């Protein structure tokens, strides 16, 4: 891509599918972001150390509802400012995500260009 970020931003990708986690990380890393990823949705609430700059959060994960995670992050003063882009295979639930406090929404399968535009907007 033409304009690489000069200061490295950290993005946390949360999805219960390893394939998606890996492919999404590949795009973001290719773009020059520092990517952390996790399969465990609930672990996001026990983050230690500095917060990432952006959270990409899947909605339907086995064992965890992404919107619950989002709602809790947004209700906590320490994490409220963390931008959250929620991702789902069902585009119908965009409103559901936004109601939970998501800053943006991305439907799977997404275009690389679309992903990068949305990420860039929140960094």
């Amino acid at each position, binding site marked *: 891509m033409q304009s690489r970020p000069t200061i490295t931003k950290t993005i946390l990708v949360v999805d219960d599918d390893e394939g998606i986690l890996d*492919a999404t990380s590949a795009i973001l890393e290719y773009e020059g972001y520092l990517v952390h990823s996790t399969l465990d949705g609930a672990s996001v609430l026990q983050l230690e150390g500095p917060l990432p700059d952006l959270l990409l959060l899947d909605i339907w994960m086995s064992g965890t509802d992404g919107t619950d995670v989002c709602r809790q992050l947004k209700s906590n003063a320490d994490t409220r400012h963390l931008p959250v882009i929620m991702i789902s295979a069902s585009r*119908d639930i965009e409103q559901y995500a936004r109601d939970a406090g998501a800053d943006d929404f991305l439907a799977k399968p*997404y275009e*690389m*260009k679309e992903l990068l535009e949305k990420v860039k907007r929140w960094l």
Partner: protein
Amino acid sequence: MLESFQFILHLSPYPPALKNLLNLLSGNQQQQLLALLISGPDFVSLSSNEGIITYVNDAGRNMLGLASLNEARLPDHEYLMPGEAERLKEVISNDLCKKGNWTGRINYRHFQTGEAVPMHGTTMLIYDEETGAAQGWATIARDLRSELAAQEQQRKLMTLAENSVDLMSLLELNGTNSYINPAGRKMLGISPEEDITRIPISSFHTSEQINFVEKELLPKVMSSGSWSGRFAIKNIKTGEIIPLENNCIRIDDPNTGLPVGVGAIMRDLRPELIAQDAIRQSELQFRQMIMEAPVAIALVEGPELKIVASNPLMLEFWRKDKTVIGLPFKEALPELEDQGFRQMIELVSDTGETYNAIEAPARLQRNGVTEESYYNFVVARIGTLSSGEQRVLLIATDVSEQVAARKTIEQSEKRFRSLILEAPMATALYVGEDLTIEVANEAMIRLWGKDSSVIGKNLIDAVPELKGQHFIDTLKKVLHTGEAYHTDQEQADLIVDGRLQSFWFNYTYKPLHDASGNVYGILNMATDVTKLTHLQQQKDEFIGIASHELKTPVTSIKAYAQVLEAIFREKGYEKESSMLTRMGVQINRLTNLISDLLDTTKIQAGKLMFNERFFSFNQIVDEVVEDMRRTTSKHEIIVKLSETDDVFADPERIAQVLANLLSNAIKYSPNSDQIRVSTSADDQYVKVCVQDFGVGIAADKHEKVFEQFYRVSGDKQHTFPGLGLGLYISSEIIKREGGRIWVESAEGKGSNFCFTLPRKTKTGF
């Protein structure tokens, strides 16, 4: 007594002629004259100067009810009616003084009864022969009572004639009328002042009539003394001929016995004739009414029930002609003998009780063939003849057709009922506003989970759990609109085996119309598709899960492909990167197929979601066109946008529909290179059309293309890939958004797909 008369005669100077005459007479003759006076029929009295009656003869005493001469010696005023003495004194005294006598009316009084006895009398003074001084007076009077009575009789007769409504006339032998009463004058047009003797009788008749009068009537009256018969006179003013009943008599002189005239009394027949005419007219009308009546009427009379009259319709019912009129019922209609009709008519004739019958069958014969017909009839006794025989009226209407029609209906109703009862499909018939279950077969009763006791109940009472569900309302709507209702796979909650369960049915509510077109009931046919619905739900669920699961690896593949493409392009590996671009296109196709499957299952489950907001319609069109341009190098997409407002809908879904229409346009026009997109708006809707010039769609398929799994089949050179879901999903989206989607197309000419969306202003919404 005789002496006193001699005395009168001798002493009275008057009348001298009489005195002289008496003197001339012999003693015997004198005796006779005196006897005439004394015992004659007239009243004779003598009075003294003092006014005392001194003598009244036998006849006089008899007239006034005095028994003897002694009783007669009374003052003269006692003989008179009250007030009469005073009146006479005035009228008499003058004449008596001057002439010595007076003649005039004297009203005597009957001593016994007090009644007036009017007399015409002469009173004369009686003088003393010696002194010549008046000694008193004598009165000779004639009793007028019988004369006055006769006059009264005459006056009454005259009054009768004058006031009679009949014409009365007297015809003199000279041919002129000497009298015509006022009624007669009026009939003849003669005013009261006119002198009838001057009007010749010929003026009162037509020429034939006067001829008859002269040649026949008068000679007959003259010869036989009278004539009676129909006659006519003519009003001389108006010329009206007046019919009369004339009674003429010859009037003879009572003395000579010779005819002196002809009297006539003529009764005006006009009112009678008018009345007769009216009766005749009404009889005629009555007869006509009977003859032409739309009901059959006949009249029978007597113990034999002789047919005296019958209108043509009754003859037609009997299959007879006029020859039966006059025959006894039994002879006229022998074929009815064993059917009880004659016996029944006899009973009516005897008892007078009217008999009514409804739809009575009668077997009658036409040309020897027995035919059965049905009649409503009335048999009534309508009077007794002067001979004492009864008269009976028969009135009948043929109701065979109605009976036949009803039987047919009953038959078909029966068939209809057994059709329902034996139908393998659950079937019920509801009747009336309260939806009474008229018929329900086993299958329907089982479907409801009830028993046969529901028959005859209202649907809501029989299946109370329907309360709160829409079925009753829908049935009533069908009842009121007369429009059938059909639906597939609809849920209904019913209490079966003691618990409320959900079932799914395909069912129809079909309105049933009566002869006049009114809806009288509803036929309900239902198929339980619960099992099928469950299977379908499982299938939909499976497809939903499967497509969701498919999306996950596709997302990864797509991400890898795109990042690889970027890397290769960055490194200058053009060939590899373009291969990855093409791979991306195939991945998108796969994505779309998965999305379509997912959308379809959502539509089936009613779970298709819409994120509605206001957006610019034209902008969405532009964006989708822009995206599509990238996918085709062959087709030029020409866009012509009119001004449209923002619309309120799910922009993603609208874009999906537009993309589907555009990709179809590209797919189905492999041999053309143009696609036209246009937008427009009217008061209520915005519209977009996507037109291609490709293979087109046959007219009979225009509706079908929007159905699930329908695919336009190409020719041998061209087969078109796809699941056949795109237009189905599009049409469901547009319907859900309140719009309409359709296609205008002809085979080989291309297609023009359009849809509309309702305009909703931001303020108005």
